[in-house]
Structures are given as C-alpha cells and as structure tokens.
C-alpha cells in the first residue's frame, strides 16, 4: 500500500503565511520609562496571542524549543557551561528514569511547563519541582497560591506576571535559601504560567527566563536577580523581546513544517506519518526515540537521513554518531 501525504494524518500548513512581526514593535533599544516598556510588551504580546491560539502544526516543536531556550538561560544563570546542544544531549542520551544531571534536570523542569494544557500547570509544577529536587513544602505551596492569586486578579498580563515573579521569588528565597538560582527558575516559570492564564492561552509558553537578564544572563559575581524599582520595566521589556522572538521562531518553524509537509508524499516508509508528527511535536528526536509502534530504530534513522537529504529537516548536532534531528 502506498502511503500518501493526506493519509498520514499530519495537520496541513496554514493556507497563507501570516504577516511578519512589525518592526515598530521590536524593542531594539531599552525603553526609558515603564510606559514605553509596557507599550512594547502589549504590542508584541498581542501578535504572539494570535499565534498562541492558532495551534499551528509546528506548535509542539515551537513550545519545546522555547523551553530549551529558557532552560539554557536558567543553566547559564546557575553558572554552568551547558548550552542548548549540551542540554539536548543530556535529555536524549539519558535512559528513561535515570538522572540526566544538574543541567538536564533544568531542561526537564522547563519542558514540564509545556507538557500539558495551561490549565494543568499545577501538576506540571509538581513535575518541575521533582526535577529540581525542590521539597514540596509550604514555601512551594505559598508560591503556587501567589501565582493563583495573580492569575485570577484583574491586572494586565505582563504586570500580573511581573508581580508573580517578584513575590514568588521573595517567598522561595527566604524559605529555601539553599535553592540558589533555582528559586529564580521557579519564579519565572510561575510568571509564565500567570501570563498564559491571564491571556487565556491554551498552552503556557516559556518566555521570561530567556530574556530577563541582559548579556545572556551569565551571572556576574555571587549576585542574583534583584527585584528593584526597575523590575516591572525589565519584565515588560523581556516579554516584548521574548514575544518578538517567539513570533519569529514560530514563522521559521512554520516554514520548515510546510517544507516537511511538501516532501511527505515522497516517503514510503512504514510509520512515516507518526515520525513526521513527532518531528512537528518536539524540539528534536534521536533515532532511538520511540516513535509509534511501526518504525524501528534503523527505520527511523533511514527516514530521518532521507528527510535531511530532501532538505526537510536538519541534523542538529553536526556529529556523525548520536545524531539528533529536528525542524
């Protein structure tokens, strides 16, 4: 039986490519006042809002890639040297249930945010706390309740998120001083939950962490994020930049998804449909990643290499072994 593209059941691309992100809404220079920052955040988030609701074919890969960027920023904040490629390796080369190491655990925490619909964040934060080995005690509970209060309040989304980040950071830092920069991770994690709740997005997006700290976030000295009078402006600016970049990333992934869709009719491999869907749903896949029941590891490797040859996906590591593939 010949498999046809339309029988693969992967969702087709949007008919027309959406308008590019407007240049006037990009926060190129740091704004001088809170109002300027809030304007940029509002403009960028309203663009992002449309994409977040649209549920594009590549939405899964998009969210997971945002999680990867957030994790890389968080890992950098802890003073470790792992970059996105190293995080991918830690994630893919660890057997299920084994400990992926300190950096890999932070990626698991961020992926937890993208694992379910935004309404399921309470079970997601339990996963994140488990990954980070944060005790599930009163402090975490208080942080969760703070986020709930901010999410159900009436403040505009970026302000509610900034407030949630500041308050939960204070709670976690004072109750669990040994948490170090993981307190920051959890606070920014909850801020992104609050933003998604306030904007009524179907899924939460990891946004704030990758853009809040200037200079890529490499920690200078033992200092940690200081919640000062510029906090709200910093958060608004970070959301403006994060939303602009997320829009760009989505447009890029959508383009790649269309390319993948275009070559789909050429594929004859058993289980190719499941493999294509998996590529659209995750940041990256290894040949050993379990995809459906129809495709073997060798079959997946052949399929992925063929897709790379067709220019539909990329090999992400540059290695000749332990290769990882993604949009």
């Amino acid at each position: 039986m010949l498999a046809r593209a339309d029988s693969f059941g992967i969702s087709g691309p949007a008919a027309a490519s959406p308008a590019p992100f407007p240049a006037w809404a990009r926060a190129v220079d740091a704004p001088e006042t809170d109002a300027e920052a809030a304007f940029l955040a509002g403009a960028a988030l309203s663009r992002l809002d449309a994409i977040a609701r649209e549920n594009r074919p590549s939405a899964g890969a998009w969210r997971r890639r945002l999680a990867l960027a957030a994790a890389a920023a968080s890992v950098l904040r802890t003073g470790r040297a792992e970059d996105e490629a190293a995080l991918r390796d830690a994630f893919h080369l660890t057997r299920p249930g084994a400990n992926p190491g300190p950096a890999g655990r932070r990626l698991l925490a961020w992926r937890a945010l993208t694992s379910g619909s935004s309404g399921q964040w309470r079970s997601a934060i339990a996963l994140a706390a488990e990954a980070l080995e944060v005790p599930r005690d009163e402090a975490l509970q208080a942080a969760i309740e703070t986020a709930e209060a901010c999410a159900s309040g009436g403040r505009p989304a970026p302000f509610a998120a900034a407030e949630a980040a500041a308050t939960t950071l204070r709670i976690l830092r004072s109750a669990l001083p040994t948490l170090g920069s993981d307190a920051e991770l959890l606070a920014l994690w909850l801020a992104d939950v609050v933003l998604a709740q306030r904007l009524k997005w179907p899924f939460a997006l990891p946004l704030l962490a990758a853009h809040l700290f200037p200079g890529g976030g490499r920690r200078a000295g033992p200092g940690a994020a200081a919640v000062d009078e510029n906090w709200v402006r910093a958060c608004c600016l970070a959301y403006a930049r994060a939303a602009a970049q997320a829009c760009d990333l989505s447009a890029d992934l959508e383009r790649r998804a269309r390319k993948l869709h275009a070559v789909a009719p050429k594929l004859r491999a058993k289980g190719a449909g499941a493999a294509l869907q998996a590529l659209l749903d995750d940041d990256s896949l290894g040949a050993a990643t379990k995809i459906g029941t129809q495709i073997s590891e060798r079959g997946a490797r052949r399929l992925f290499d063929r897709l790379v040859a067709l220019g539909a996906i990329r090999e992400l590591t540059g290695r000749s072994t332990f290769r990882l593939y993604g949009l």
Partner: protein
Amino acid sequence: MARGRKPAGELDTELEDLPAPARWREWMGRVEAVIFASAQPVLREDLARVVGRGCNLDLVIEDIRDELRGRPYEIVSVAGGWSFRTKLGFGDAIRAALGGPTRTELSKSNALVLMAIAYFQPITRGELSQFFGREVSRDTIASLRGGGFIAAGPRSPTLGAPYAYVTTPGFLAQFGFESLRDLPDIEKLEDAGLLGRGKDGALGGDALAAELSEVLGLPIDEDAPEADAA
C-alpha cells in the same frame, strides 16, 4: 499510647477525640518514631501519612528539635527528607567504642574522585582520568557505585558511548547535604564558570584542574593514592 483497637492498616491520623495539645504530642511522637525507625531519610510524603491533614510538619519537626536540644543526636534534613544523626562532637567516642565506620569506607583517592564527580556531573571515567592526570580505574567507579554514591546518568556522545556519572540521593544523605547546592564552595566554581560541559561536550578546558585545586585547595596531584589503604 493505648488507643482503642483499630483494624491494622487504618491509622487514625486526625485524632479528633484528643484535646489539641495531646494530639500535637501524639503527632510529634509518631513523626519522631518514624524517622528513628528508618534507615534512610524519611520523605515528607511518608510523614504526612501519620499526621492529620491540617498538621504543619515543619512545626512538628521544629518542636521535636527543640526537645532534642542537649541530646547527643538530632534530626537533620538531608536528601529531601529527615534523618537522625549523632552530633559531630561524638564521632571520636563512637569510633573508640565501635571501631571505624562500618559503612562503606572511602579511601582518600576515592573520595577525591567522588568529589570531582559531585562538582562536575555528569562526567565520564575518561574525563575524570583526564582531569586527575592519571587513570581513574573501573574499580574506583565500581566501588563508588557499589557504595551507592553515584549512578549512571546520560551517555556521552563520544566513541563507545560511555556513561557519564551523576551522584545519587544516597550521596547527599551520607554527607549530610540537602542538595548539591550545599557542596562546599560551589558558588566560587559557578562564578568562575567552571561547571558543566561546553559546546564540544567536554569539560571546560585544561586549566580546569589547576583552577579547581586552587579554588578548593584539593590536592589534585595525589601521587600515592593507595598508600592510605593500609
């Protein structure tokens, strides 16, 4: 405490028939007993099963600690749970009476390797060897694994796909750390950017060992590693 006969397996956690102070004492007793009876650190979830729903475990532990003040042992929080430990000052007395530690004995060189794994996890045996400038033997790794200090983490994407090793909760418990953040001087290493693996998948550079020994005062050039085995 004599209580009415209850079918086994159904513990009355709420204790509503008791006045509040007696109820609190009973909860304290239960928590202390459970921690005392367990060889491993007891997790919060486990303790939550023997006290009432409205009971604040942290306050219970706090009260037990207050009562134990002046005793030669205390409740410490390790590896995400709680455990009894004798206080540090009594180590000599215990050793004099019972001989050396009966648990897994760590030679000095093994302890060094373990600390390097703790700081630089995930790290492979090859990287450890490179780091110490001498072969770190499979036996060393095996004995650390056997002692429950380390486990296999992610595989390294290099020839032969060796496992990179990570520390276990058992390591944290044994050394009295609550999390890896409690490792001495870890902040200094973080600020120096020495932790983790960079783009090429390798640990950060040749100067690493020198810098580590400088920051931590670790004797990296230990030449006679087996001398202290006797």
